[in-house]
């Protein structure tokens, strides 16, 4: 057995080196091969390490990045799957790479469908579940199925303290399904842009009666209660009580934590990032890190790879935001419709496996809401494998055709988005998953950006 283990490690490490020499990330394949040769490799390498796991539909990467800042600020020694390779292969690769390093914690973003398997191998002590939305149904099946998978995964980690979004009626049901200690976080106020018509979970999880809401923040998140069986939102341990300020750079909120009032800045724009901020806060709180450190981390955190990345391309102020499902893209559209300075919008739609092979979800996105701020949108560029479907969606959202241009190749797209004459103001680029990787790779070469796995 020992031979197989050594062999597995040796081959995986060689792969990591070779793939990176050739400029490929090498974040998944080495782990995949190592597990094939020696299936126990992940369990053995992660033994004795407390894992902090982040799962859920939206916000995993951003939240992991904030937690990473918190752990740095609190002087924890830890490893993490920063590149976002969040299946068992990617997690195994991270442990192999760091085999001889000295660390006590592993901060792991894990795909919500992969969690039930990965949790058998690692020692999960802290688990954060961000939210559950409809996402790539061709891959995951129904939401209730995804939830059942997460609950099954929790049965593999009885020692884990779980941080749950109290505003999500699906996730909150976990509190009744498992015996683990649970910390709830939530927002007590509606968001200014709440659209009450959108919900991925209108009916009671337990008795299928329609929920009543005292307010909503986003989608099905908010103050839900079931008039029939009494299942309702639990008052959160970490509660945002006031949304004080929201602008293009950050949000300022007031929270109540253990009866203490705390004011904090979350150094990312957009309502949805308030959830990401307080969910990361809840993990820090669970770890026992003091409020002062936590608010400092939230206020100074810098956006990570892809999810909201800022860069300058020939002087064009560029923001890349990953979009992958209706809930996520709707929240970005809400954000864009609050901007008060002109900007150029670029949408890149791919339909490879990691994007979801079914692009129908774009018809669930309220592109119509861009009309309200159309005077600020100087132009819209469209690209990607399914560019015509995206262009068609915008046509049927009645956005002005003279503001829409299709870029047929990546080369043409890059030329466009890095041309200050075409993009005189701020540029927002919204790619799907594989489109982001392609774009990032091309931009990286041309503009010498930092490689994403570093």
């Amino acid at each position, binding site marked *: 057995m020992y031979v197989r283990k050594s062999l597995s490690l040796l081959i995986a490490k060689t792969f990591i080196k070779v793939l990176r020499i050739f400029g490929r990330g090498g974040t998944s394949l080495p782990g995949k091969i190592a597990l094939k040769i020696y299936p126990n490799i992940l369990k053995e390498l992660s033994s004795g390490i407390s894992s902090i796991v982040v799962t859920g539909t939206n916000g995993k990467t951003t939240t992991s990045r904030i937690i990473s800042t918190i752990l740095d600020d609190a002087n924890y020694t830890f490893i993490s799957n920063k590149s976002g390779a969040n299946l068992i292969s990617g997690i195994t690769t991270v442990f192999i790479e760091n085999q001889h390093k000295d660390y006590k914690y592993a901060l792991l973003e894990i795909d919500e469908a992969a969690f039930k398997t990965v949790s058998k191998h690692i020692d999960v002590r802290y688990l954060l579940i961000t939210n559950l939305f*409809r996402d790539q*149904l*061709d891959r995951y099946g*129904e*939401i*209730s199925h995804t939830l059942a998978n997460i609950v099954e995964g929790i049965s593999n980690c009885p020692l884990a303290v779980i941080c749950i979004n109290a505003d999500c009626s699906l996730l909150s049901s976990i509190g009744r399904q498992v015996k683990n200690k649970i910390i709830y976080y939530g927002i007590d106020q509606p968001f200014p842009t709440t659209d009450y018509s959108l*919900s991925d979970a*209108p*009916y009671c999880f337990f008795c*299928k009666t*329609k929920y009543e809401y005292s307010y909503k923040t986003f989608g099905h998140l908010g103050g839900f209660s079931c008039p029939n069986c009494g299942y309702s939102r639990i008052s959160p341990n970490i509660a945002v009580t006031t949304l004080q300020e929201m602008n293009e750079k950050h949000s300022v909120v007031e929270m109540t934590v253990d009866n203490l009032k705390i004011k904090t800045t979350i150094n990312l724009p957009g309502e949805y990032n308030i959830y990401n901020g307080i969910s990361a806060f809840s993990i820090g709180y669970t770890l026992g890190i003091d409020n002062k450190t936590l608010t400092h981390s939230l206020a100074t955190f810098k956006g990570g790879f892809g999810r909201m990345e800022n860069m300058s391309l020939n002087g064009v102020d560029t923001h890349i935001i990953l979009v992958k499902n209706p809930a996520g893209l709707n929240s970005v559209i809400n954000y864009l419709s609050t901007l008060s300075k002109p900007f150029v919008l670029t949408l890149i739609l791919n339909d490879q496996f990691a994007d979801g*092979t*079914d*692009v*129908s*979800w*774009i*018809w*669930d996105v309220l592109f119509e809401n861009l009309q309200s701020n159309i005077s600020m949108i100087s132009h819209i560029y469209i690209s990607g494998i*399914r560019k*015509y*479907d995206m*262009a*068609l*969606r915008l*046509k*049927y*959202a*009645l956005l002005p055709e003279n503001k829409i241009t299709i870029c047929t190749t990546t080369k043409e797209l890059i030329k466009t988005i890095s041309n200050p004459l075409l993009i005189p103001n701020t540029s927002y680029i919204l790619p799907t998953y594989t489109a982001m990787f392609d774009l990032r790779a091309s931009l990286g070469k041309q503009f010498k950006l930092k490689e994403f796995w570093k």
Partner: protein
Amino acid sequence: MKLTIAHLYPELLNLYGDGGNLIAMKNRLNWRNIECDIVKVPLGQPFIANQYDIVFIGGGQDFEQEVILSDLKGDKTKQIIDAINSNVTFLGICGGYQLLGNYYKTKDGQTYDFIGALDLYTIGQEKRMIGDFMFSCPYIDNQLVVGFENHSGKTYLGKSVKPLGIIKKGYGNNGEDKTEGARFKNVFCSYSHGSLLPKNPALCDYILQTALQKKYNINLEELDNTLENKAHEFIVNRLK
């Protein structure tokens, strides 16, 4: 001129971008100066089917179909059957298509009685039939219909119901007999969800025409379908 579309169970049967079909119908009417009202008919609301020119029923999650069945029984079932017999136009997608049939037998052998408006039934199986697909449709000239299917139910048509088309690529109703969807009077059903109508403008217009002819006896003007056809052809070329 105005058509009124009923959207049955909008809060439940709204998966996979089915709303795209409503957006397509509404815009393609508006672009010809025909008004279009979309009326949501949620669970628990009375439904007088004959008041509408088009009734749209989308797809849903299994969890939600149970909720719907108890609401559909009784008066709503009668309303739907009467409306179909008086030639009201219906569009049923995925779960909405199955609900119009006689029954659904799950893979565990349990049978759910559906409303029996169309002579067809569905059998559940483990394996999902997922992917881009393409079928030829006799109701539109020389044209292929493209879409994306994602279903685990296999549907079989009775004698009185015609298929909406013949499968060229993909599974369709059951992956066995090459049929896809159903056509009975002015009822159109398909397993193609999401952007079925936006990407297949000829089919969209044909369906609208059935409702228009009943009410106003007029023909639809041509529209510029350049972009629609590009999205359509992309999938045709991929599947060829």
